[in-house]
């Protein structure tokens, strides 16, 4: 594998990691507050649809972004009402949201566009375009650093950079602010938060809304950054992979970045090296396609120890039995 290939695979990995990263951080905020969320997939899908639709209507991807985040936050609030206010089962609520999103996106899409649940193809300002960073062209010629800067670092949609910024911001919010302290506390021991005079419910709703907003970014990037429009079920299981990445990352922002990059990298390599011969035997495509998942298991078993979830996770906060 030569240098250029490495750069290109990494470049692809960055793109593929970004939606995972947003969704993973979304799950991180939610689960850190003690609300398990397997509805990341559904929220991503809903936001992909609504962002693409509004972008198609208005021609503005930014309005699309708002709509995508709005839709995702709406679903997050349903999850919040079910699991915080009514102390319902968080897993069930998440499953329900996935079903709802699968159905609603297509039904509404069909009634709006009559394209079978697809949105029209997005063009121009209705999409997030790739950004060329300053001096990218000028530096391209410089050996090693040039291609890294021009081909790997430069030339992504703004949301990719936002994804990286979100990691840093999440870390900062979580570990350097009052809100972060309280959020981490409420996921570990809500009674400690309650007896300290802070509203458990308020904190958890806030976390849920942040989760919705981040899932909104994930979906928007899928539909308006990576693709140019919505196709039904286009989240294609990425919400679940993000969940896996979250566990992998042990609920920490920095590790989340690494985990998502790893998943992105494995997928990019799977894409790039689908047909290879080993000792003259053609390895079946299916094996190469399963390889990222096999490697994930191997890495998990070999290098990542036990992951301890936030202690109060999944349990509704009930003061009086």
């Amino acid at each position, binding site marked *: 594998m030569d240098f250029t290939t490495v750069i290109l695979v990494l470049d692809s990995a960055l793109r593929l990691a970004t939606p995972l990263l947003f969704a993973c951080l979304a799950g991180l905020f939610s689960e850190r507050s003690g609300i398990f969320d397997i509805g990341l997939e559904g929220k991503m899908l809903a936001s992909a649809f609504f962002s693409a639709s509004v972008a198609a209507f208005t021609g503005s991807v930014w309005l699309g972004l708002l709509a995508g985040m709005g839709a995702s936050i709406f679903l997050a609030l349903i999850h919040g009402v079910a699991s915080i206010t009514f102390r319902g089962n968080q897993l069930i609520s998440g499953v329900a949201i996935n079903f709802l999103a699968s159905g609603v996106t297509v039904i509404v899409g069909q009634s709006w566009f009559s394209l079978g649940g697809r949105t029209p193809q997005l063009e121009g300002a209705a999409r997030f375009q790739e950004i060329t960073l300053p001096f990218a062209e000028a530096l391209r010629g410089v050996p090693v650093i040039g291609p890294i800067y021009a081909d790997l670092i430069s030339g992504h949609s703004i949301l990719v950079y936002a994804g990286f910024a979100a990691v840093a911001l999440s870390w900062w919010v979580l570990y*350097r*602010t*009052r809100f972060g*302290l*309280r959020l981490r506390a409420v996921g*570990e021991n809500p009674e*400690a*938060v309650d007896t*300290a005079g802070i509203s458990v419910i308020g904190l958890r709703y806030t976390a849920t809304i942040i989760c919705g907003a981040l899932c909104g970014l994930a979906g928007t990037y899928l539909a308006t950054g990576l693709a140019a429009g919505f196709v039904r079920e286009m989240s294609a299981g990425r919400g679940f992979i993000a969940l896996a990445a979250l566990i992998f990352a042990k609920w920490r922002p920095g590790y989340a970045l690494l985990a998502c990059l790893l998943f992105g990298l494995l997928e990019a390599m799977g894409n790039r090296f689908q047909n290879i011969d080993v000792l003259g035997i053609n390895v079946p495509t299916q094996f190469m396609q399963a390889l990222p998942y096999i490697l994930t298991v191997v890495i998990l078993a070999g290098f990542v120890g036990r992951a301890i979830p936030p202690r109060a996770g999944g349990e509704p906060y009930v*003061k009086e039995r």
Partner: protein
Amino acid sequence: MQAEQAEASGRPVPAIELRGISKAFGPVQANRDISLTVMPGTIHGIIGENGAGKSTLMSILYGFYRADAGEIFIRGRKTEIHSSLDAIRAGIGMVFQHFKLVPNFTVLENVILGAEDGPLLRPSLAKARGLLRQLAEEYELQVDPDALVEELSVGHQQRVEILKALYREADILILDEPTGVLTPAEADHLFRILKGLKEQGKTIILITHKLREIMAITDTVSVMRRGEMVATVQTAETTPEQLAELMVGRKVLLRVEKTPARPGEVVLEVENLRVTDEDGVERLKGITFELRAGEILGIAGVAGNGQSELLEVLGGITKGEGEVRLAGVPLALSGKGADGQSRRAFGIAHVPEDRQKLGLIMDFFAWENMIFGYHHDPAYQKNALMMDNTAIRRDAEEKMHRYDVRPPNAALQAKAFSGGNQQKIVLAREMSRKPALLLVGQPTRGVDIGAIEFIHQQIIALRDQGAAILLVSVELDEIMSLSDRIAVMFDGRIMGERLPGETDERELGLLMAGVAGEAA
């Protein structure tokens, strides 16, 4: 208005006055029309049996629960307490029976949680660090501000809880069973702190089961029974016997009656026993002792000096090295046979220190818990596949009656029982099988005096039937009154052995502090 009246009349205004507080949890009336007056600058004790409603009352005062009826006056002013925030604003701080700390936070983080100065942590942390140092000096509340709370001893965790309250400038401090988990030394230390606080003019409410503590430190004491407040008296004008009677509603023996031991054959031989924990820290550094049938060996020591590990390795929960023989037969300390099943097959019963985490499945019914660990016993099997639930239930109900578990309803979940009764379930299960060796840790932690009396009687009865008993307790009283021999552990070693008649708390205290041997 009231405040002014009181001032005019020259009487001091009560720090706290509760009037007609009632609270029900579904069908359970935890508090019934309770009134209580606490004068400022005093230490006010509250006692009562398990489930009497003490914690509930204090949680209401602290805004953790909302009362169904009643009024609260703080310093003479009627105060609505809807949440803990209201209570904190009214200057109330509370140290709960079960600490409300975030285990994987540092001390500092726990202290500032909810009392941060601004949206950013850094300034708050810096300020808290300074204040903590100051408080530590003022009240002997030393604790490493950067330590993770889960890595602190229980005593230190409690200090964090007190610091939390002081940091919020509480001048009314509620402590719910603060000494239940403390060693005598730690308890003494706590009392010094409380006295210091009192001298600063703070008001303290202290809930405890230990009459000795009530007598030693409180100014006034209130007694609760079955959700009602039955008496409030000046401590100086009462006696422990009288209080015990008020609590339980009958006369209670406060001293353990026992005949001298008649030790028989050696049952347990432990030689150079070592345990290393997951982090590679050596917890037991070569323990050697013998235990005979019909004898109680009490292990004294400050919590965290290897007593827990000793019980766990003997009970087959953790692995160890060295040699352990039961009636001459070596026990496996690692690999096959080093598990709870095999130990039970040898006739070793184990009452674990932490009944809620280890000894019981809180969501299981009492009858299911009554066979926990003994589920392989042929008596409980209907055939090769099925368990005989009818027999198990019958057996459980019989044991619950015999061990005075209240209510004696085997169809209740373990979590529905009070702490004392949960403990009785575990004891019934482990002791009723007439084990050759009983390992028992903290048998009366958090248990009221009525139940303590009963539990102590059962342990002695078992000894008299010829069982060897290894008793681990941080209550020196308990060790002194139950044991036939006392071994003191410090830092994973046995510092020395004493006979209860030939030693005193002072000497044991020195051994517990690691001051070795005959010099003490």
